[in-house]
């Protein structure tokens, strides 16, 4: 629908963009022939994973990942702007996503912010190169929206801690080498103060990873049971009892409130609107193309406007003077809420456009676009629920941005 601006870009950046674009054109892998996951929430099989890991590795080797991370940790020390150009061009090329998302966007920046020199040296480069995959151990069966009520414990031993507890929705846990883990280290302390933040080695004994089946019938995320699983002293990130504060920082990265670094993308790309337009131009409803139905056109334009508004908001968010001075966080904190609901509206609407063929499911040879639309609609709930539900997001915006009283 729209391309990123180039006209006012500096000469160097424009040149860099041209290079990236050329590289993408030459190196973007062909479709492997098997079903690819729609996002990192759905990596099921070994071959899917290996395909995606190889792609990220290739991007890194080409020098297009970690551009804004310091050189001593495997990055390049360039301005964030450069990494943003890569993300835009990845998007534009329709390239596969970067599979180590949790490492690149959540764990990595958190380690950069709170880690010791040793931790940064140890962890950051293998995140970029995709040698070591990361997962996240925050949620528990009884602690979802109310994350601070988590009960997993880390009991101190002579040389570290023993973890016991139960984490859920741990995307990528089945292939992860590391987990960012929240566990309670002080039962007596206040709900928030008793939590610490760890970099947990997934190959420790006493760890069981069990796949969970999503509403689509597919795998991709898991539950992890810890039974006295040991971790060394070096696993602690930040101070003991500082876990909640650090976790809030991670969630800020996760929700795209802070600008994604390292690479990767979070918003429903403009190409998804284009894809539904394209769909409407192929699908017949009662003898005419869906794209000719004024009501369908009107609905899709509504979504287009939202998408364009969201895109421009991302652009504007970086310009202090274009934001309300009394709520500088507004545009960043609303990002996850708006894009996740827009994605849900768009995919649901695509199913409406499909008409009766929306009833054909994965594996049916006649399903339009291989049933990607109903699948995407179902998967959209992973985004309106995961990383803090839309309800939690609205509370956060109401309370932190607008100063409304807490609802608790």
């Amino acid at each position, binding site marked *: 629908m729209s391309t990123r601006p180039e006209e006012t870009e500096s000469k160097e950046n424009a040149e860099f963009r041209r290079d990236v674009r050329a590289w993408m054109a030459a190196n973007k892998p062909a479709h492997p022939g098997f079903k690819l996951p729609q996002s990192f929430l759905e990596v099921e099989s070994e071959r899917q994973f290996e395909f995606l890991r190889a792609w990220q590795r290739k991007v890194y080797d080409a020098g297009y990942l970690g551009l804004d991370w310091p050189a001593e940790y495997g990055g390049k020390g360039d301005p964030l702007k450069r990494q943003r150009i890569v993300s835009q061009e990845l998007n534009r090329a329709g390239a596969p996503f970067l599979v180590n998302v949790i490492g690149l966007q959540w764990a990595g920046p958190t380690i950069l912010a709170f880690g010791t020199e040793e931790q940064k040296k140890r962890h950051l480069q293998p995140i970029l190169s995709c040698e070591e995959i990361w997962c996240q151990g925050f949620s528990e069966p009884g602690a979802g929206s109310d994350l601070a009520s988590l009960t997993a414990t880390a009991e101190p031993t002579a040389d570290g801690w023993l973890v016991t507890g139960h984490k859920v929705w741990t995307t990528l846990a089945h292939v992860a080498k590391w987990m960012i883990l929240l566990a309670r280290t002080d039962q007596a302390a206040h709900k928030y103060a008793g939590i610490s933040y760890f970099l947990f080695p997934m190959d420790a004994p006493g760890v069981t990873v069990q796949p969970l089946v999503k*509403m689509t*019938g597919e795998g991709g995320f898991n539950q992890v049971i810890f039974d006295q699983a040991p971790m060394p002293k070096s696993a602690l990130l930040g101070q003991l009892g500082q876990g909640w504060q650090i976790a809030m920082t991670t969630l800020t990265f996760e929700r795209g409130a802070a600008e994604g670094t390292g690479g990767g993308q979070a918003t429903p790309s403009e190409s998804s609107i284009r894809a539904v337009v394209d769909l409407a131009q192929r699908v017949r409803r009662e003898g005419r193309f869906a794209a000719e139905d004024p009501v369908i056109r009107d609905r899709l334009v509504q979504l287009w406007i939202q998408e364009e508004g969201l895109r421009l908001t991302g652009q504007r968010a970086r310009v202090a003077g274009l934001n309300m001075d009394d709520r500088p966080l507004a545009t960043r904190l609303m990002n996850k809420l708006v894009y996740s609901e827009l994605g849900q509206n768009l995919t649901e609407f695509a199913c409406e456009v499909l008409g009766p063929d929306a009833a054909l499911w994965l594996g049916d040879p006649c399903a339009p676009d291989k049933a990607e639309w109903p699948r995407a609609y179902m998967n959209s709930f992973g985004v309106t629920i995961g990383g803090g539900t839309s*309800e939690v997001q609205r509370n956060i915006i109401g309370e932190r941005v607008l100063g409304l009283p807490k609802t608790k």
Partner: protein
Amino acid sequence: MSTKSSQALRLEVPTDFGFTEEHALLRQETRRFLNERLPMGELRKLADAGIAFDRGLWKEIAELGWVGLVLPESMGGAGLGWLHLAILLEEMGRRLVPGPFLGSLLAGVALREGANDAQQARWCPGIASGDLVATIALTEAGGAFETSGVAGTADPVDGGWVLRGRKTHVLGGADAGLVVAPFREPSGAVSLFAVETPNAALTAERETCIDATRPTARLSFDAVRVARDARLEGDAATAWNAVLVRGCAAIAAESVGGAESVLLTARDYAIARKQFDRQIGFFQAIKYPIVDMMCGIELARSLASGAAAALDAGSPGAETLARMAKAHASDVFANAVRKGVQIHGGYGFTWDCDVHYFFRRAMWSRAMLGDAIHQRRKLADVLFDR
């Protein structure tokens, strides 16, 4: 729409819907039977095993007289009204009863409205008893539900017809002993044909349906040879319209039941689940969507039973009410499952949570027989008298 707009605007529904104790009894008994026979665990087993058509269950349902509920007694049916059926379907929708019920039901409608006595005598008793699984092929590739979309052809040959075409989303299409389907004759007129199976030139390919409780199939008529009397000898347009209108009313009633189940599930979860030391139903973020779900369902139930009562009364506004019911109930059901998943949080996103079975049914129900956008376009012509 087949009715004159001046008539269609009179949406008479009999006062008090002609409701009797008999209806209440039917609801009670249906609910009791399904609660016992098809608790969620049992439904899960069937759906997860891909058993969309369980012949044992079908036999029991048939013995209860459900399949022939609205067929006249002269055709082996119970001769009851559409208000009875709406209640039955609502209860079936609550339990996501799998199988080819709707297909048989609508094939029966087609025969009742569009066949001659001999044809009715030949097939209807079997349909009513459940011995003959029948179906109606409502759509072709391209997804039209109006006869204008019929591309399949019927060519007269010596002593009969040759049928060619491809029908999609046929409920029970791979299991039916009788398929009623529209084909276009050389004159351009569309007629309904009843084709008995097996037939060597008729192949059925099971579809992978989003709703594992719906045994749908694609049928290929590759020069299917049928006898002369396979063509239904009634007014095809009337029969087709009856199938569409009654199909809309039926899916609407079923959708009300499905949405009702989601409502109760969400309600129960909002009471049982605690976060922030409170039952989550305390939070208006959870409470209000549930309330709005209920209000939507109640209106949909009114429209569905109103349409049924209007059909029973032979009211000329019945088609309008049936389309309203389909439009509204489809949207209400789709919205209920969407909110239903969200209210259940991470659990709602898993296979373990029951909501996704209803989610799939809602997707199916919205898409079939014309979605809300389509129905409203038809209704606008009534409202604006053109």
